[in-house]
């Protein structure tokens, strides 16, 4: 019997993700991929390129937006019910998924913090879309912008690798196992 179509609730329940979690997930996925692509592209721009000034400004603005979204996401995750894994998921799958999710959260925060430490290394604040500024906290450490820059790069690469694994695993559930793992995150149970 097919369940009667109804509007998905905002909150999670034991059977799956609510609208808030789904929205936060896909919004951060979009931002993470966008930030990686733009970050890689903008560091190679010619000095006279139209985007030479704007692209880093937008990268930082969207990066800090992602930070805010991730904070909300973590709080929402802690404060709400986490859906149960599907009964068909093996022990290994559950552990691997858990590790990947925690890894993604940790790597994302580390990437964002290292990026913030580049731009604020001289004590300057970061403008967010010209609307407000996020002030510097830790600045003036020896070689701060260079070390933070190296971390930012390799952490971002690590995020992409783990995110790719995460996506491949979801596709495997959808196309190979034919279970509802991915559908639950798309809002269709």
């Amino acid at each position: 019997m097919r369940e009667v179509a109804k509007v998905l609730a905002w909150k999670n329940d034991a059977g799956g993700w609510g609208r808030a979690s789904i929205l936060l997930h896909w919004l951060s996925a979009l931002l993470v991929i966008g930030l990686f692509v733009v970050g890689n592209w903008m560091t190679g721009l010619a000095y006279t390129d139209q985007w030479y000034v704007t692209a880093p400004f937008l990268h930082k603005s969207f990066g800090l937006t992602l930070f805010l979204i991730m904070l909300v996401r973590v709080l929402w995750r802690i404060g709400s019910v986490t859906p149960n894994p599907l009964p068909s998921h093996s022990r290994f799958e559950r552990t691997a998924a858990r590790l990947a999710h925690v890894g993604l959260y940790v790597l994302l925060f580390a990437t964002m913090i290292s990026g913030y430490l580049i731009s604020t290394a001289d004590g300057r604040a970061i403008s967010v879309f010209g609307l407000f500024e996020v002030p510097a906290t830790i600045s003036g450490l020896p070689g701060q912008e260079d070390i933070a820059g190296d971390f930012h790069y390799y952490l971002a690469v690590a995020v992409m690798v783990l995110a790719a694994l995460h996506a491949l695993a979801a596709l495997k559930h959808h196309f190979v196992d034919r279970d509802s793992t991915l559908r639950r995150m798309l809002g269709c149970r």
Partner: protein
Amino acid sequence: MKARFFCIMAAVAMAVPGLAMAEAESYEIDTSHSFIQFRIQHLGYSWLYGAFNTFDGMFQLDRDNPENSSIEVKIDTASVDSNHAERDKHLRDDDFLEVEVYPEASFTSTSLLLNEDGRSGVMTGDLTLRGVTKSIEIDVSMVGEGDDPWGGYRAGFEGSTVLTLKDFNVKQDLGPASAQVEMILSIEGIRQ
């Protein structure tokens, strides 16, 4: 015997400073009172200033033959500071200074031509930057010298020169107004 020993020692003690006087005086650069600054045009609309904060070196003043005076300076290229961390990071990467490959720049003077005033002139020397060694000329002049209040003796100079970025294989093209960088040098030394 004892008197004779003291006599010799006294003669040696007096002779040593005399000998030292005949040679060039050696000065160690006081980096807390010295500056290696640069300025470059931004798009032709304004001047951007920066500095290399870490360097050291010595200079020799030859009182008998001033044109034999010389200097050697080593500069930590990673210490570049243009008052903007993001730009400094870029200046250190391979578009500009490539400091991981070329962590040190150096200048060693080869000759000095003094003007009639004996206090200014043109110093020629080899600048090694980004692995390229090139002879450059620096306009130099003495600012002053004398005893300091703490028992030392100091001498100070200023210098200026213009470097073409392409000459030192700087990859980044900053536009026609910014092909060259002006160097502004202010060096104070303490006599050793």
